[in-house]
C-alpha cells in the first residue's frame, strides 16, 4: 500500500505541474463553464429581445385597406410598392422581413363568410418572424370570426365545447431534473473522460516513450503497484474534472439572470450531502473504469501521437450513450440500468428530479464497480506483458 501511495504521490505532483492537465481538469470546467452558461444565456436573451422589438418590414400585395389599417402599428413598417418577384428578392437579400400576398377574391370571400386566401412569404431562418406576423393575423382572424358569429347569432362558447386549464403538478425539482438533468451528466462525463485522457497518455505512453518506465520497473515496486498508482492518479484527475464541471454548472445556473425563484431554490437544494454522496458513489467507479480502460489502450502505443490515435475513437463510444440520455423518452429502467455511461447519465437525471429508484441505483453502482474492476484487471494483464511496457 505504501508503494502505491508513493507512486500516486509522485504522479499527482508530476501531473499537477502540467499546464495541459490543469487547464482541462480545473480551469475549463470551473471557470469557462459558468461563464459560458451565463454568457450564452445572456446573449440569447439579448438577441431574442432585439428580435422581438425589431420593427418588421412587411410588404403587402393585393391588400384590403381595412386589413392594412389593422396590421399597422409601431412594430411594423408596411410597404405596398412590391410585386411578388421583387418582394421575394428583397426577402432573400434581407431588406424585407416578410410579404403577404392576398388573393384577388380575398375580401369578397371574407365578406361572403368564406375563407380568404393569403400567402405569407418569409425566411424560416428568421425564426421569430412567422410567429410575430401570425400573431397579428390571428387577432384580425378572431375579430372577423366574432363578427360572423354575431351575425349568425351564435355564441362564441358554441365553438368551444370545452375549456382546458392545464395544471402542472411537476415540482420545480422534477422539471429541473428532466431538463437540465440530462445535460449535466452529458457535460461532466465528457469532461471527466477527456481529463483522464491526457494523464493516461502522459503517465503510461509518455513514460514508455521516454524510457523511464524501464527504470521504474527495475525498482522494488511491482507492476501491479505501479499500475494502480498510475490508475488512481488518472481517476483522481477525472474525478476533479467531473466535480469542477458540476460545480461550474451549478454556479452558472445560480447566477443565471432572471432564473425563477423556485428553480433557484431547487438548485440550492440540489447540492445536498445526499446528492453529492449518491453522485460520487457513481463517479468514483466511473473514473476508475475510464482510468483502467485508457491505461489498457495507451499502453499499446509506442508514442504520444499513436496513443492519441488509439484513444480518439473511444471518445465516441463514451459520448454516444451520454448523449442518448438527453433524448426525450429514454428513461431509467432495469434494462438501461446496465448500459454503462447511459445508466449514470439517466440516474443523475433521476437523482436531481428526486425520482430515483433505489434498487436500480444500487444496481448501477454495483455494475460500475464491476466494470471498474474488469477494466483494472484488463489493464493489469496488458501491463504485465513485456512487449507492452517496453518500447
Amino acid at each position, binding site marked *: 500500500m505504501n508503494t502505491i501511495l508513493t*507512486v500516486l*504521490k*509522485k504522479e499527482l*505532483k508530476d501531473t499537477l*505541474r502540467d499546464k495541459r492537465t490543469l487547464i482541462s481538469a480545473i480551469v475549463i470546467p470551473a471557470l469557462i463553464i459558468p461563464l459560458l452558461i451565463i454568457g450564452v444565456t445572456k446573449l440569447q436573451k439579448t438577441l431574442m429581445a432585439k428580435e422581438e422589438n425589431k420593427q418588421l418590414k412587411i410588404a403587402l400585395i393585393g391588400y384590403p385597406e381595412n386589413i392594412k389599417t389593422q396590421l399597422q402599428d409601431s412594430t411594423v413598417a408596411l410597404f405596398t410598392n412590391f410585386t411578388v418577384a421583387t418582394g421575394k428578392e428583397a426577402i432573400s437579400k434581407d431588406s424585407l422581413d416578410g410579404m403577404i400576398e392576398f388573393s384577388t377574391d380575398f375580401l369578397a370571400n371574407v365578406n361572403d363568410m368564406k375563407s380568404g386566401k393569403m400567402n405569407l412569404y418569409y425566411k424560416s431562418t428568421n425564426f421569430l418572424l412567422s410567429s410575430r406576423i401570425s400573431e397579428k393575423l390571428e387577432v384580425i382572424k378572431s375579430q372577423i370570426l366574432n363578427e360572423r358569429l354575431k351575425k349568425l347569432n351564435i355564441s362564441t362558447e358554441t365553438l368551444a365545447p370545452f375549456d382546458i386549464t392545464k395544471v402542472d403538478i411537476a415540482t420545480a425539482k422534477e422539471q429541473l431534473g428532466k431538463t437540465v438533468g440530462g445535460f449535466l451528466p452529458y457535460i461532466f462525463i465528457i469532461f471527466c473522460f477527456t481529463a483522464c485522457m491526457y494523464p493516461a497518455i502522459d503517465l503510461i505512453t509518455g513514460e514508455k516513450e521516454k*524510457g523511464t518506465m524501464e*527504470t521504474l520497473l527495475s*525498482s522494488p515496486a511491482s507492476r501491479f503497484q505501479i499500475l494502480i498508482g498510475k490508475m488512481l492518479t488518472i481517476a483522481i484527475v477525472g474525478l476533479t474534472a467531473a466535480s469542477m464541471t458540476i460545480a461550474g454548472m451549478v454556479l452558472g445556473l445560480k447566477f443565471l439572470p432572471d432564473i425563477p425563484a423556485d428553480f433557484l431554490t431547487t438548485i440550492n437544494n440540489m447540492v445536498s450531502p445526499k446528492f453529492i454522496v449518491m453522485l460520487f458513489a457513481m463517479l468514483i467507479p466511473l473514473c476508475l473504469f475510464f482510468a483502467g480502460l485508457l491505461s489498457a489502450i495507451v499502453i499499446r502505443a509506442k508514442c504520444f501521437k499513436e496513443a492519441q490515435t488509439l484513444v480518439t475513437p473511444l471518445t465516441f463510444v463514451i459520448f454516444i450513450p451520454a448523449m442518448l440520455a438527453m433524448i426525450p423518452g429514454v428513461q431509467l429502467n432495469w434494462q438501461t440500468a446496465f448500459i454503462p455511461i447511459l445508466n449514470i447519465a439517466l440516474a443523475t437525471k433521476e437523482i436531481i428530479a428526486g425520482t430515483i429508484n433505489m434498487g436500480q441505483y444500487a444496481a448501477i453502482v454495483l455494475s460500475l464497480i464491476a466494470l471498474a474492476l474488469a477494466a483494472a484487471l484488463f489493464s493489469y494483464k496488458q501491463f504485465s506483458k*513485456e512487449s507492452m511496457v*517496453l518500447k
Partner: protein
Amino acid sequence: MQASIKKLNTTSMIEIQNISKQYSLSKKQQKELQTNAATINAVNEVSFTCTPGSVFSLLGANGAGKTTTLRMIATILKPTKGDILVGGESVTENPEKVRKKIGFLTGSTNLYDRLTPGEIVQYFADLHGMDKTIFEQRKDKLFTQLGIHEFSKKRIAQMSTGMKQKVSIARSMIHDPSIVIFDEPTSGLDVITANSIIELIKQCKQDGKTIIFSSHIMSEVDLLCDELAIISKGNLIYSNTMKNFRTEFAHQSLTEAFIDIVKHDGKNFAKA
C-alpha cells in the same frame, strides 16, 4: 529448474546460467527481417559470472543482445530459458528481492521533466523504503560527488543531457545498491560528464560494489574492467578476466581485438 542453477557460486555476485530470451515475430517483423521463423532469439544460452566487488563489462555490437541481457538481470525481462542469480536470489523466482539489491541505469537519459533532481531521487528512495535520515545523507553525498547541488533546484526539462545523466545515476544509486547495472552510461555525453561517471564507477568499485556495464568505448573498458564478456548475435563468444584478455591480445589494441573476436565469432581469432 535444476538445483545446480539455483545455488549461487560463492565466488560470484551475478551468476548467469544458460539464459535465453526468445521473442515472437509478427508478420511485419518477419517481412522486415526476411525470415519465415515465428520466433527470434535475442539472447541464446548465455552463461557467465561476475565476481563480487569487480567491474564486469559486457561488450557487443548494436543489437548483439547486451541490453536484453542487462534487462534480464534487472528483472525487467524474464528469461525464456535458464535463470540468473543476483546476490543469491533468482530473477525468475524472487524478482522483488533482486530489485532491492540492484541499481539500474538505462541507456536513455530521459527523466521526469516536471520534477527536480531532489524529487526524483526522493521518489526512488521511497520506492526502496529508505529511512529519511539515511536518504538525506546519501543524497547529499551523491549530489556532491556528481556535482548536482548547483542545479538541484532546476526542473529536469531545463537541464542538459549531461546534467540529466548525472541525476539518472544519482537516482539509480540512491539506495546504495550492492550491484550496479549500467547500460552504456557515458553514451552521448561530453568528456567532462563522461569522466565524472567513470570516476563514480571507480568509487563504486572501491566501495566494494559489483558493477556490470555495457559499453562501446574500449578505452573505458580498459580503464575500468576486471572481467569482460563479448556477445554477438545473442551468443556469448568470449568471456575472460581483463588480465587474461590483455595477455591474450598483447599485440593488438582492445578495439582491434574486439573486432577480431566478433568477426570470427569467438573462434580461431588471431591471438598473441
